[in-house]
């Protein structure tokens, strides 16, 4: 307790030097928590958006389907197995039929994916209800990225050419009934969504689909014929890998920040040892052991981290609370890059992140504070009283 009081008194007495160190360290705290909160928020948002718009509670893929190999798409369709059809009938699963097509926006030829989706589904956030029509034309839904890149707008007619199940060419005009504003580029770029039943007729693929999306939090994971079950861990692997790369890149930023703060602490400790030789000698003469002296100086260093945590909490808490509730507007370029993050990023400052950061910084500060004080173990009180540091 004596050491604690003495340490506090000493660093308080150091005045401006202490507060400069504390301020520098508090910036490190705030920056680490802010950046990590951004990454966690980004990761959380990307996963949430991907689940809501694309993955649901997991998917079943027709055995030939491989989203990374467009060559498989021609054969990736078959009748929905009974067990999955039962889930579809109960509205607990959503069938999607995928077929390659060629579109002709403004007379240009482009490859696209034609995707059939049920119009009354609630499993994904795709606004498929707009695909209900009774005017005879084929209604189609596209994303904002597709709309922008192809120069197609709501109400436009677009010629689409595809092949049916037997490979016969067919072509027709579709009417763009809505431009959906989606955060997920994977349901947007190069894709046209049309009513499932219409697409099954167009392609001569009755009751067939390419994949089945399960409702969120679905526990269904049985083996269903040759259809492959893909859980969220598998489906989100890419999103998580992208975030891991992002986090690794940002960790360099923390290391630089912490190095700067630790350099300041280290310098302060060295300076203290040099300037306070007589004080150390006096304390030893009064009966303080070398170990206690080391503890005192280390604690002084560590206290910078504690004070910095308090200072950082004072100025950054309102800011972080504001950011967590109102979010940070993202430039449009982020959406163009294909990250499913939305227009606003809400950083995620979890309890674990804050406590973890404090513990790590405190631990590093303590180690950095301790290293210079090892010299004390070789210190002779007589030399110290005379101002010598051997």
């Amino acid at each position, binding site marked *: 307790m004596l050491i604690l009081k003495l340490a506090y008194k000493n660093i308080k007495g150091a005045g401006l030097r202490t507060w400069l160190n504390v301020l520098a360290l508090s910036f490190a705290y705030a920056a680490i928590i802010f950046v990590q909160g951004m990454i966690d928020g980004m990761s959380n948002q990307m996963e949430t958006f991907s689940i809501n718009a694309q993955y649901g509670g997991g998917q079943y893929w027709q055995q030939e389907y491989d989203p990374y190999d*467009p*060559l*498989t*798409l*021609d054969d990736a369709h078959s009748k929905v197995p009974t067990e999955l059809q039962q889930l579809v009938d109960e509205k607990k699963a959503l069938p999607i039929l995928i077929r*390659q097509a*060629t579109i*002709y926006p*403004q*007379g*240009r*030829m482009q*490859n696209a994916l034609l995707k059939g989706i049920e119009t009354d589904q609630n499993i994904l956030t795709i606004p498929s209800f707009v695909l209900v029509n009774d005017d005879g034309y084929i209604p189609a839904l596209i994303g904002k990225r597709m709309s922008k890149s192809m120069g197609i707008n709501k109400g436009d007619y677009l*010629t689409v*050419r595809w*092949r*049916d199940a*037997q*490979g*016969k*060419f*067919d*072509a*027709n005009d579709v009417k763009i009934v809505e431009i959906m504003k989606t955060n997920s580029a994977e349901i947007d770029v190069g894709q046209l969504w049309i009513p499932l039943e219409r697409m099954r007729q167009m392609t001569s693929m009755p009751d067939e689909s390419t994949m089945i999306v399960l409702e969120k939090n679905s526990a269904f994971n049985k083996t269903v014929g040759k259809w492959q079950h893909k859980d969220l861990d598998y489906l989100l692997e890419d999103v998580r890998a992208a975030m891991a790369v992002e986090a690794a890149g940002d960790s360099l930023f923390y290391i630089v920040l912490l190095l700067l703060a630790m350099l300041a602490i280290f310098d302060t400790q060295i300076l203290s040892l040099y300037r306070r030789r007589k004080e150390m000698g006096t304390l030893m003469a009064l009966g303080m052991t070398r170990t206690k002296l080391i503890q005192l100086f280390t604690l002084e260093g560590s206290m910078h981290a504690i004070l910095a945590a308090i200072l950082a909490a004072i100025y950054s808490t309102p800011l972080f609370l504001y950011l967590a509730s109102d979010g940070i507007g993202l430039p449009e370029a982020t959406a163009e890059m294909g990250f499913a993050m939305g227009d606003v990023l809400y950083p995620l400052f979890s309890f674990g992140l804050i406590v973890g950061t404090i513990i790590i910084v405190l631990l590093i500060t303590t180690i950095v504070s301790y290293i210079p004080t090892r010299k004390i173990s070789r210190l002779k009180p007589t030399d110290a009283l005379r101002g010598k540091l051997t």
Partner: protein
Amino acid sequence: MINKLIFTLIVFSTIVFSQTQSADEILKKVDANTFSDSQIGTSKMIIHGRRGSRTVEAKSWQKGTDDSFTEYLAPAREKGTKMLKLGDQLWTYTPSTDRTILISGHMLRQPVMGSDLSYEDMMEDPLLQNMYTAEIVGEDTVINRQVWVLDLKSKKDNIAYDSRKIWVDKERNIILKEDLYAKSGKLLKQVLIHEVMKASGRWVAKNITYKDMLKDGDGTEMIIEEVEFDKKIPSYILSKASLRR
């Protein structure tokens, strides 16, 4: 009265029957004129794009209806590019990457050298009588030649174009115009022959325009410069090894 009706029916059915027969006969003659055991030729393809036109020259060897080999001779950028079709498989070789690629799936839908012809158009069975039933629907004049107009309807489900309309020269049995339709009846492609020539006793289209009717532009012009029929093609040419030769 009944006798008159029976007579009319007999006459009508005879006309219809004879027309169907003659439509099939026309198709057979067209195929006979088109099909040869082998074919070696050089051609020029003029691709009219949005930013101007470019010309691609090629030499090709074709054996029967299944196997063919094409080597691009010009421009310098395409020189050395080769294409080999063996049965229902198609490979391309590009010297700049020194790689042979099997063209399949969606890649077959890509235009050949940016033209209005896709790889899958090249993969089609050229014998019309194998794929379509024909019906004469009229007569017309194309490039000052008297032609039969035939409607062709696919016999099988796996034929790429559901129906076609062809304009066949009455004397020369060569198609002078062709419209290719989707299942919905939408016109997808149009082939126009501007000039014909005689080679090895056959009538051959010398100047052809292929046009993807869904796409803007003036289409792709093909000029056959030289063609020889029923010449022996060395077996090494129609092999994968020849791609890197």
